[in-house]
């Protein structure tokens, strides 16, 4: 991950830019700073999911090591899970550091949520990002233009993820969409915690979605590898 410039873009450049844009356009005080910072952090996590964890198998194919990764003694799911987890851990750390640096530099008065729930939210973010990244990785494996589709997936979640743009500001027909994204429920969880409420609903739904993503990723990956092995196309770019 450290050798890939895209990590620096999604983990440093993007959150810094978004936070500066919002902070520069709107007066942030202790009543609204934390929700904004949390939304920027999770929005940047989505970019990190698409470009780092989501690109694991695509990059393997580009480097010609896909065959070895998915046909080793270990299950391909474990291999992809491990790679995605590493990507998510490093991305989250970089995003948190970048956002913190901007908060300090611009003197944004952020009041944090309850430390325990904040810790749980961060852990859930990593796990959720990992399983979502695995799922995307399988999907990008199906197409030759994975890079192009990656960039096309960024903005739908920026728009409909219920993060920077609250669900109540979305058109009525699409207000249900954020509920399919675990990041939205993690955001819901930290905001409830910040307000002094118990964020059980957000945690349960976020964790459930994480498990669903993981299960789907395992199923799709098995099918994709089986199909590629039958067709003899595993080694093809």
């Amino acid at each position: 991950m450290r050798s890939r410039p895209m990590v620096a873009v999604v983990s440093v450049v993007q959150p810094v830019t978004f936070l500066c844009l919002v902070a520069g356009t709107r007066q942030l005080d202790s009543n609204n700073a934390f929700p904004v910072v949390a939304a920027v952090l999770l929005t940047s996590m989505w970019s990190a999911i698409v470009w780092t964890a989501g690109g694991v198998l695509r990059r393997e194919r580009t480097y010609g090591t896909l065959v070895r990764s998915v046909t080793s003694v270990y299950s391909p799911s474990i291999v992809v899970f491990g790679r995605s987890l590493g990507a998510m851990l490093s991305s989250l750390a970089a995003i948190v550091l970048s956002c913190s640096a901007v908060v300090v530099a611009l003197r944004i008065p952020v009041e944090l949520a309850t430390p325990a729930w904040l810790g749980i939210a961060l852990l859930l973010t990593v796990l959720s990002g990992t399983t979502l990244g695995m799922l995307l990785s399988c999907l990008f494996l199906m197409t030759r233009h994975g890079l192009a589709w990656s960039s096309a997936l960024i903005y739908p979640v920026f728009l409909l993820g219920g993060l920077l743009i609250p669900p109540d500001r979305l058109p009525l027909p699409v207000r249900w969409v954020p509920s399919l994204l675990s990041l939205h429920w993690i955001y819901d969880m930290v905001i409830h915690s910040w307000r002094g409420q118990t964020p059980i609903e957000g945690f349960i739904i976020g964790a459930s979605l994480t498990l669903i993503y993981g299960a789907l990723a395992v199923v799709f990956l098995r099918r994709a590898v089986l199909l590629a092995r039958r067709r003899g196309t595993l080694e093809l770019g």
Partner: protein
Amino acid sequence: MSLADSAHWNKALAGLQRAQGILRFGAVEFWAVNPPEVLIGSALVRMALQILFLTALGSVVAGAQQAERAFIGAIVLATAMTNILYVSEVPISEKESATFWRLRMARFAPWLILCVRSWGYVVAGFVLAMMAAAIMAPLIGMSGLAIQLMPLAPILFAVSVTSTAAGLAAAAFAVGRRVETLASNLLAYLVMLTSGAFLPVGQLPLLDALGTCMPGRNGLLVIHAELRGDPWASDFFRELCVGAGWVAVFVLLMTIQCKRAHRGGHDDFA
């Protein structure tokens, strides 16, 4: 016609034919890297959603009265950022294919060849931005504003040219280093931050200073001036100067990269 005139004429004709060849190659390369399904399914969708996102974000953050300003800024940003990112394919593909040495051996200077080959990105960036704006305007209630903006399409084309120049310069940094996506993305996000499309000018002196060198900044000033009925010739001239400046940066960087290759006896930048 004397023999000398005839020789000059033949030389000019040969140069023109080579230039035509470069233009044709640019088109073939563009379609190979960006087939229609990628242009429409990815680039156009991305630009349309980017316009929608920035307009919605502007409305959420700065209030509904800023939505129109955010819409205009979003169209310019979508053009500039897309061109900066996509045009990097032109020099980087030479690096990744290990064919950079062929550019050094060519009759035309490498920077000229790459500039001419990038014409497809200028046209595509402009056309896709117009299409994206036309698609999004009715959906977000900006049809009236979109119609007002139509006569200003040449300004958007100018922004497409200047941002392509900036994208080439950013990619030229990456030819000799393993920073393929970092330079282009860094520049694209700098444009987002400093162009005045979203963040009003006057917030931070450093950002304002950086913004004077960024493509799209003066183009936006032209659009806003025209909508107000103010003169905008000087802003337009500044936008063209910014583009020319980025071309100069590109020429300088490519010259340095070629000299490095010549001195080092290698062209393997990969």
